[in-house]
């Protein structure tokens, strides 16, 4: 099992390296001259040239990449073009802020989605209503839902702050947005899995043992629902940590997503690269965590690993 874990880590690192290469190449596809972004007022080509020379932008692509990758291997993400600070020191606090939002969002979607899925399975009467809710949530673009919530709870009812920031009061609406957008997926997984489980031979065995419905649900059915849900939580945490861009922009939540968007505008390549790499690492890491967790919940996956 340890060997399997090590293999996964190695594959994960290879995936991250691949992302680094792709992101680096993409940077150069984005039109624009970082030197002009750094010194917008400088008219003299000599000044711009010296900026480019300073940032090694005049060197061949492969040399630039080798330099960047070498630094990366030493744990150095580089320095922001604009803010003249290390990328790590800029991303660090943002990572924490985004982490809080990602976690709150995942908790919200698990609770909302899980409840919808369980209700839809157990109570036939609300099933149609719940699938209508699911469809609606799936159809709404995330920024529309975010703006809608902001409009209703922020501006109309004035019970949520509209100014942005990273406080607990400001967390509610973006987390709810993530929760509502993600909920249908969890509802679907939970309902499917529960229906399979309820129709299974082992539930019939449990019935034949004279166990009560609620006991069977708790001890036999829900345990079998857990495993796929954990996989999805891992995927969500990873992808949210790479920046929930839309939600952060709508709610002015000062996380990685907002930083990445601003840096893209400024052609601040080191920061963009930094956020991409953090995102890739987060996805790999949380998938791994989810796999390990699943081994505890579903013993069959222990042999698969």
């Amino acid at each position, binding site marked *: 099992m340890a060997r399997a874990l090590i293999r996964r880590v190695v594959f994960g690192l290879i995936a991250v390296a691949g992302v680094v290469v792709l992101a680096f190449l993409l940077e150069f596809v984005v039109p624009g001259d970082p030197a002009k972004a750094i010194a917008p007022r400088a008219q003299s080509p000599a000044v711009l040239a010296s900026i480019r020379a300073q940032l090694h932008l005049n060197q061949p692509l492969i040399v630039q990449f080798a330099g960047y990758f070498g630094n990366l291997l030493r744990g150095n993400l580089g320095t922001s073009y604009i803010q003249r600070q290390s990328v790590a020191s800029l991303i660090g606090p943002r990572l924490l802020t985004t982490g809080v939002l990602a976690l709150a969002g995942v908790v919200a979607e698990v609770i909302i989605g899980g409840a919808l899925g369980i209700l839809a399975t157990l109570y036939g009467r609300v099933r149609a209503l719940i699938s209508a809710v699911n469809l609606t949530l799936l159809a709404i673009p995330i920024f529309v839902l975010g703006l809608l919530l902001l409009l209703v709870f922020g501006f109309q009812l004035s019970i949520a702050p509209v100014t942005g920031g990273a406080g607990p009061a400001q967390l509610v609406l973006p987390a709810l947005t993530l929760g509502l957008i993600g909920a249908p997926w969890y509802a679907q997984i939970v309902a499917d899995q529960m229906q399979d489980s309820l129709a299974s031979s082992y539930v*019939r065995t449990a019935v034949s043992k*004279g166990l009560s419905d609620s006991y069977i649900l708790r001890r036999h059915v829900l345990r079998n629902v857990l495993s796929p849900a954990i996989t999805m939580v891992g995927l969500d945490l990873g992808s949210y940590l790479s920046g929930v861009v839309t939600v952060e922009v709508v709610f002015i939540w000062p996380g990685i997503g907002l930083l990445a968007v601003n840096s893209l505008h400024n052609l601040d390549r080191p920061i963009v690269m930094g956020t991409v790499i953090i995102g890739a690492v987060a996805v790999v890491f949380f998938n791994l965590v989810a796999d390990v967790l699943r081994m505890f919940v579903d013993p069959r996956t222990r042999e698969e690993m």
Partner: protein
Amino acid sequence: MTPGQSEQAPALEIADLNVRYGPVHAVRDTCLTVGAGQVVALIGETGSGKSSLALAAARLLPRSAAVTGQVAIAGKEVSGLGGSEFRRVRASLLGCIAQDAMAALNPVVPVGRQIGELFAVHAGMSRPQAAEAAVAALAQVEIRHPAAVARLYPHQLSGGMRQRVMIAMAMALAPPLIVADEPTTALDVSTQAEILALIGELRARMRSGFLWITHDMGVVAELADWAAVMYAGRIVEQGPVDVIFDAPAHPYTEGLLATRRDLRSGAPGAPLFQIPGSPPGPGEEPPGCPFAPRCPRATAICNEVDPSLEPAVGEGGAGLAGGAGSMNGHRVACHHPAADAVGAWAAPAGPAEKPAAKTGDNLGTAGTVAL
């Protein structure tokens, strides 16, 4: 009449049982008794209603099934009990052994706990006590290192071990009745023999009666005291196993046995015996005997009147109903039951030579008996 010879109440008494799935009448007016400590084999093709009958007796059919009739287990009338009332007593009245133990055990719960919850819920034991009792139950079914096995998950066990776990679970509370649905079908031959030996031994020790669904005539011969043959939702013949084997009265039973005889003693390469045609599908049952379209002995009355289950006339005896043959409980639903050991299928009969008038349009299509 009743197969149970002891003074004890029979393990299972079914009377006038009907099972319907919407318009499909899966089990029709069926009566069956499993004597205390007796093994009754329920034989029939897929779709004959044998599983529906057994699941109805165990009250494990889905809610979409409409069940009528009386079911008594160990003398206790259970068909009138409400859902939660029955739930409380069911595990001490009957245990179930499924065909596919891998599917019938929860994949994410250790097997010891799956057995132990029976003791925890029904015998009021604490968790550690229940775990201990589960280990003892595993030891009962001759599992080596039961304490270690109790901590394993179903996928970590072999097929035979899983079936032993199922048996331990079914017999945990020593119920008077065990409903076993082809418990050895999924196993290889040597494991099958081990499991059969184990069940034979446990049965002698625990005095549980078995309702044993099977299509393996070898298993029937080895283990069963009594055999009931089902066709198209009816029991068409039942009686002591040796009588059924030696002097089957229903042409369908004869056909089943002929298939088995071919398997055992037929010349290599010779075609296996098959009952021509196939059972009536839902909604296409003839008004008379459901077997008439496939039957070599069918006459006009067979196509008009559905025969009821009557005492069979004994071997060679031309007596009236209630004669010597009925004393052993042998009953058959046929207008022309075999009166001698020469079976209906003894002479090779091609479809063209069949003496009886045929109504079925599946005449001549040599459907395989799915046995």
